[in-house]
């Protein structure tokens, strides 16, 4: 695979797609917050490889390139859509919390929705690390390679992202050691 080191051939691309597409779709979807957008973002990344005949030394290089491009595309989409959407979400969550606070069961049932909303409110750098970790299934080293930061930085960001997320969900640790 990619033995030539040149632009990947048709078979290489099919293999690359099958190996990475599910993960890319998940990552794009979580960051962009839209399935339609995720589909287009992933497709656009592959189109670039096909049409520009981008050369990759190995399957891994292609994979990291794809993750980076998809991550950036999804972040851009989220940013474009961001300001107004965030305003709506804030209002929506506030509304729900006040009306549904009495009903514990309802709150539990919607916890997935709540988690997603909380994830959306995280700063970009933290969100990207957590999404790549939990949805992309990448390890710290790989995340560092995709984001262009050190492994140590990934570790710190993963921790901060979790703490921020738990705090937003009202489940944060009571004390800071």
């Amino acid at each position: 695979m990619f033995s030539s080191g040149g632009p990947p051939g048709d078979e290489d691309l099919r293999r690359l797609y099958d190996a990475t597409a599910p993960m890319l779709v998940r990552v794009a979807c979580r960051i962009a917050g839209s399935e339609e957008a995720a589909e287009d973002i992933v497709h656009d990344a592959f189109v670039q490889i096909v049409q520009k005949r981008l050369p990759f030394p190995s399957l891994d290089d292609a994979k990291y390139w794809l993750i980076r491009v998809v991550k950036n595309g999804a972040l851009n989409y989220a940013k474009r859509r961001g300001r107004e959407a965030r305003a709506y979400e804030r209002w929506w969550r506030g509304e729900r919390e006040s009306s549904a606070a009495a009903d514990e069961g309802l709150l539990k049932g919607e916890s997935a929705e709540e988690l997603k909303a909380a994830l959306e409110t995280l700063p970009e750098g933290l969100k990207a690390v957590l999404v790549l970790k939990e949805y992309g299934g990448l390890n710290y080293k790989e995340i560092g390679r995709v984001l262009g930061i050190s492994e140590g930085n990934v570790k710190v960001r993963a921790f901060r992202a979790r703490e921020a997320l738990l705090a937003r969900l009202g489940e944060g640790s009571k004390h800071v050691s």
Partner: protein
Amino acid sequence: MCPDRGLLSAYADGEVPSPWNARIAEHVAGCAACGSALERYASLGRRLSSEPLPNEKAIVARGRERLERELAARAAGRTAPAFGSLPRAGRAWGRSLSLPLPLAAAAALVLFLLAGLTTANLLAGGREARPALAAAEIAPEGAEQASMERILRYLDSQNAQVTLTINLPSETDFGEAGTPVIVRAPKVRPVQAAEGEAP
């Protein structure tokens, strides 16, 4: 003493290297606070990744079809249409070329300039046939090669009452930029040599 939360977060991700890995496991087993913190991180991960993406398979399958269309389009040597069916293969010659107007104008300009340059080069080739510059002899005391110093000395001795013509090398060749080659490579013997012969 408890490990800090950052370390627990890394531990939850399986990113703590070997000797510490076991020590943390041992500590967490006996420490309620760390145990619950670790559980919070782990459950967050579980909840995130278990959150369903119901259309994932469909999206991936659609993407695969779109990829196939792109590959077919590449094989056919053209980019895929944004919508519609597979492009017909083998039509690379028959299709018409459409360019936006500014691009067409730019292309025309480039062609025009290229044509101009080529013509200029052809004309420059013809310039070589031009006759060498007019020449006459300067023969101070019969010397064929004259240094400027000797010429001046000669003129001085003749009280400047002499008609002088300087013979330029016959292969005078003016370069493309207008720099005469003679300036760069005068066909004159070094002064020392000429002086050395004289006495």
